[in-house]
């Protein structure tokens, strides 16, 4: 059978162009089908492996869908209380400046309950990387309105659509932190197409390299989908994200350092 289809003849080292990073564990991801978290995790793990940072990396996982991030990437982890990851990261990096320290936070964690910790860590210019997954909804708790929920967007706590007169406008945290002198590199990316995946990986790699320069906070927003929370198929959710999220949260760099990263 294999001989007939020629599979065995194709599975050869010289034909290998992609393999799972060693840093991703074999634990089954807790995410819904089509969710962007898994891709973002993989990119992070790949960069840590490729930049040889496993023994330097200390990650801080949030409260939200990615609370169990520490099960999936084989590095040292701290689990923070809801929104407090940048405070943990601040102390870790100050006490051990030679380490690679990053947080991975959702929009509820980073832009609602953790607004203060986020803004002040960025404003102090802590030499950390903050990865911000923005899917405009509280996924883990069942699809409630987030600070980043779009005007008119439905959620379980904005069932008739977000009424900005009553519920306030969505908060563009990435735009806010880009204005702070403490941030060094601020960008907004996505992971819903192969081209965007490449760009996001490049951004994470840059941030990892910038951290060695001790220039300040690197902040990467990844606009992501939430098929379950948005009550759509993965394909529909990606289309909806392109049509609705991207106009409000445009992809691209918000702050780019002039200096070139160290090799």
């Amino acid at each position: 059978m294999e001989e007939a289809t020629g599979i065995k003849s194709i599975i050869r080292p010289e034909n290998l162009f992609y393999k799972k990073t060693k840093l991703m564990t074999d634990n089954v991801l807790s995410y819904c089908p089509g969710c962007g978290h898994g891709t973002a995790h993989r990119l992070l793990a790949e960069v840590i492996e490729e930049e040889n940072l496993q023994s330097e990396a200390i990650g801080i996982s949030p409260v939200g869908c990615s609370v169990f991030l520490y099960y999936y990437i084989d590095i040292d982890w701290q689990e923070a209380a809801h929104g407090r990851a940048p405070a943990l990261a601040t102390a870790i990096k100050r006490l051990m400046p030679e380490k690679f320290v990053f947080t991975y936070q959702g929009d509820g964690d980073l832009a609602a309950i953790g607004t203060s910790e986020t803004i002040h860590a960025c404003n102090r210019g802590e030499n950390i990387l903050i990865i911000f997954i923005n899917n405009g909804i509280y996924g883990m708790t069942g699809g409630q309105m987030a600070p980043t929920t779009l005007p008119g967007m439905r959620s379980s706590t904005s069932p008739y659509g977000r009424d900005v007169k009553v519920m306030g406008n969505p908060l563009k945290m990435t735009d806010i932190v880009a204005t702070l002198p403490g941030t060094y590199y601020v960008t907004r990316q996505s992971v819903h197409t192969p081209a965007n995946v490449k760009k996001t990986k490049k951004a994470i790699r840059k941030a990892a390299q910038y951290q060695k320069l001790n220039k300040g906070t690197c902040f990467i927003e990844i606009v992501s989908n939430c098929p379950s929370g948005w009550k759509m198929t993965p394909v529909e959710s990606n289309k909806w994200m392109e049509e609705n999220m991207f106009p409000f949260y445009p992809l691209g760099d918000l702050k780019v350092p002039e200096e070139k990263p160290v090799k």
Partner: protein
Amino acid sequence: MEKELRLMKGNEAVAEAAIRTGADGYFGYPITPQSEILEYLMVADPYKTTGMVVLQAESEVAAINMVYGGAACGKKVLTTSSSPGISLMQEGISYIAGAELPCLIVNVVRGGPGLGTIQPAQSDYSQAVKGGGHGDYHLIVLAPASVQEMADFVGLSFELAFKYRNPVMMLSDGAIGQMMEKVWLGPQKERSKTVPEWATTGKPPTRERNIITSLDLNPARHEIFNQKLIAKYNEIKEKEVRFEEFQCDDAEYLFVAYGTSARVCQKAVQLAREQGLKAGLLRPITLFPFPSKRINELADKVKIILSVEMSAGQMVEDVIISVNGKVPVFHFGRMGGIVTTPDEVVENLKSKIKGD
């Protein structure tokens, strides 16, 4: 290096002792009556000498979470605050207890509730000893009664915190924090280079990854973890009870008091004895674990026990439990930032003896 004699405020003594004991980091937010600690550290600038990190956080919430982050790296870290700030820290303290992280939290207590007053009080006893944050946990709680103990208990706190992987609270008050006394300071110690095996310092190829978390969604496993914590607290109760007795040998009337109230009661014992009343004082030094066993033994010998606290009566509940009905137990205390006088204490004892 020899010990050094200095005249200092209790707050300053905490700061200086933290540097000398080789602390790795301090994270705090200004609040009266303890802001001298952060100010002293900023002036001393120990990063240049010992490498100790000192950072003013944006809030008490951030400060305690910085402590979490530092403690999870196996570092000797502390924060200090006063009552309203300690209330803000309760979330972080619960997480620190749940993640079994060693650290020191100093509460220079002021009157409450709410903003209350900036004057000294002992009304945070229950918060410190019974929990404060959510979940079944205990802090080890030390109660200094002098500037000397404010200094000495910094090192002791770290010792206990790392021995049991448990947060330690030093429950002081605005009087001890603000008053100046002579204090013997120990020599400068090196910061520890030992990395605890559980610490998150970056995963070398030689070990599994370390994860610091308080989360476990598996009920059976989580109950086992809860039981492990209880076993730890029981061991602490067994081994770490500390107290001091003052003229208890022949005492017929026993004061139980800690911190500033214990200082007042020491004088009250003298005054009472001058008036023919054989009084004694038991001063708990650890509030958790509480010296229940010793108080129960003394209850066999005395007629009345008076718990003296600058609160509405919080520790008295633990005294009542310890005495278990053997003799009458009463509470006396002033509130609102007022420090009880020795005369008031003796008068109150007399009225209790008369049965008023």
